[in-house]
């Protein structure tokens, strides 16, 4: 896998030239990769670059000769940020298109909408997004960062920069609800105190009253797992009230959809985050990735955490298919469970056989002039939250999302 990609590093010309070839050389029988993402609607800031990443990954795979001598074909559906369309298109992919694998889903709600469909139809499913952890299902593979990888590192760092009293503002759905509980746990573990928790439905965009009540509680730190375009107004209104320099803030989601580029430098600077990827990562793999992206789409500014996750997810699947020598479910799962790893733009990604989650690098970062500056890199973190409750090798029939209890 990494060899194939290194061949591509030669230059963009070779890349484009190679893209022309595969149609001729590959066998007619294609491998079908189903993609299901919100490429429009209020979550498209997440979904559109993810869709671009899927297509980039697949065109690179095809340019390098496809998989098992067959071309990979993308069958993509745009779910328009509508959760009901997920189940519809999910059924469509498995029943009608009978794809070999499905990559996609963005919000945790969308993943839960299609996970059972994929399981029933025995279609391997890759969910390539940072999420709240705890999904234990042999049919799904997740390479996004979980709370133990992210929140556990972010909370003590942010508390160290500010103080022990923490106020949590979370999106009101399973991601926000569960992540808020994780934050409370890690705040308590680090000797802090949670002074308030507020949940906001995804369409709330007026935070005036909330900003006032936060001030009444006068915390040392705001933790904000807020999601989507409407919630972005919180950061605007927060800055507009002049609160930004008074109470430091950390977020588990801000930036995964390149929100730091939508906010002005004044509104964003200093917000603390922790992710697997940043465009500012100064590694040869990332620089080469950005070049390939720019060659395919004009410029590389659209790349974000979730797009890279998605790219790495497709590449991991491709590697597993090569090792298994088949796209069938059982051989694929066995290959994935063999401790397989790839080198992606965000570093080394290893599949954890016990949980089907990923072992990966996490970077503590802060927003700086519409970029994410790396402060500290925490190499190869394990998804211990999910490992504590889920063992797919001991219980292969497990099919639950474990939630943290407080």
């Amino acid at each position, binding site marked *: 896998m990494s060899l194939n990609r290194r061949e591509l590093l030669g230059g963009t010309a070779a890349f484009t030239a190679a893209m022309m070839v595969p149609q001729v050389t590959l066998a007619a029988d294609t491998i079908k990769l189903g993609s299901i993402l919100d490429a*429009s*609607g*209020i979550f*498209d*800031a997440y979904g*559109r670059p993810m869709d671009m990443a899927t297509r980039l990954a697949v065109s690179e795979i095809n340019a390098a000769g496809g998989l098992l001598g067959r071309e990979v074909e993308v069958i993509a559906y745009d779910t328009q940020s509508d959760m009901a369309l997920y189940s519809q298109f999910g059924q469509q992919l498995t029943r009608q298109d009978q794809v070999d694998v499905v990559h996609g889903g963005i919000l945790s709600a969308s993943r839960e909408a299609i996970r059972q469909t994929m399981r029933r139809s025995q279609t391997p499913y890759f969910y390539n997004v940072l999420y709240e952890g705890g999904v234990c299902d042999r049919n799904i593979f997740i390479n996004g960062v979980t709370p133990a990888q992210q929140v556990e590192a972010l909370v003590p760092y942010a508390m160290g920069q500010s103080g022990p009293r923490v106020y949590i503002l979370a999106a*009101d759905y399973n991601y926000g609800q569960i992540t808020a509980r994780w934050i409370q746990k890690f705040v308590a573990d680090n000797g802090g105190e949670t002074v308030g928790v*507020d*949940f*906001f*439905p995804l*369409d*709330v*965009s*007026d*935070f*005036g*009253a*909330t*900003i*006032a*009540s936060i*001030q*009444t509680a*006068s915390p040392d730190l705001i933790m904000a797992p807020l999601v989507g*375009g*409407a*919630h*972005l*107004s919180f950061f*605007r*209104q927060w*800055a*507009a*009230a*002049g*609160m930004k320099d*008074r109470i430091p803030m950390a977020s588990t989601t801000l930036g995964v959809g390149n*929100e730091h580029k*939508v906010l*002005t430098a*004044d*509104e964003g600077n200093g917000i603390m985050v922790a992710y697997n990827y940043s465009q500012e990562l100064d590694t040869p793999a990332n620089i080469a990735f950005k070049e390939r992206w720019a060659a395919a789409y004009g410029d590389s500014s659209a790349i974000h955490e979730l797009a890279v996750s998605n790219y790495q997810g497709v590449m991991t699947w491709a590697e597993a298919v090569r090792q298994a020598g088949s796209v069938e479910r059982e051989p694929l799962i066995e290959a994935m469970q063999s401790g397989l790893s790839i080198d992606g733009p965000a570093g080394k990604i290893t599949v954890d056989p016990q949980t089907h989650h990923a072992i990966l690098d996490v970077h503590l970062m802060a927003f700086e002039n519409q970029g994410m500056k790396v402060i500290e890199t925490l190499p190869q973190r394990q998804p211990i939250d999910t490992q504590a409750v889920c063992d797919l090798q001991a219980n292969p029939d497990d099919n639950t999302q474990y939630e943290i209890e407080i």
Partner: protein
Amino acid sequence: MDLTFVILVEMLYAVASLILISAGLAVVFGMMKVINLAHGEFMMMGGYATITAVNLGVNIFVAMLIVAPLVVGLIGLVVERLVIRHLYGRLVDTMLATWGLSLFFIGMVTLIFGNTTTGISTPIPGFTVGNYQVNGYNFFIILVSIALLIVMLAVLKATRAGLIARGTMQRSDMAAALGYSPDRIYMATFFCGSAIAGLAGAVLAPLVGLVPTSGGAYIAKAFITVIAGGPSLIAGLISSSTLFGLVSQFFTFAISPVIGEVALLVAAVVLLRLLPQGVTGKFFKGKL
């Protein structure tokens, strides 16, 4: 004490923003008995006009107070000529046509600006009240809405155009008989209504992340406020905005923003059940 002041400001702000959101719709509805369901999209386009103008180097206040109303007013004019004027007197049909227009505008703006959240930052810094920081921009919104009400009142009461407009509101057939073309009056009214919507969208834009579907958040509130206000234009606007603004902010502070919104809606149902013609259908009769 400080908190009381902060809550007071937030309440005033809630009332002011309801007035802003609803004023354009109220003008169109009060004058023409046309419910413009694309009102929210007019506001959204006002926001986009502002952002585009600011990005082109226009001063933000000029962009908000002049560029956006003009642009949206002109769009409104085109819409009136092409669609609305064929539908006068057909309330339900205009609602449906403007609903279609709202979807059309969402699609157009998506095509032009893409579906990603954009926005600008507020031009006024926050300031300190005791231990609290208050969003300074709230005062700007309160000021704009007061100014808007005064201008509307002045135009309707003191100018010849206002007189004609009031006459048309009461008896359009009589106005026509006196030689004033209702067609042109309606055209002008729709232009004004759209321009006010554009202004509102522009002024509120710095507070929210703007997406092409942002209008949907406004239309229901505007619709409810205007209908609950009843037949009098300005008195209705003020009374229902005050009522709903206070109710929703009270519950927002007491419980949560969601409960605040729900309280507003419940208040609307109760109000319309008790006063089916809106507040000014019963009180302040004959006022503007």
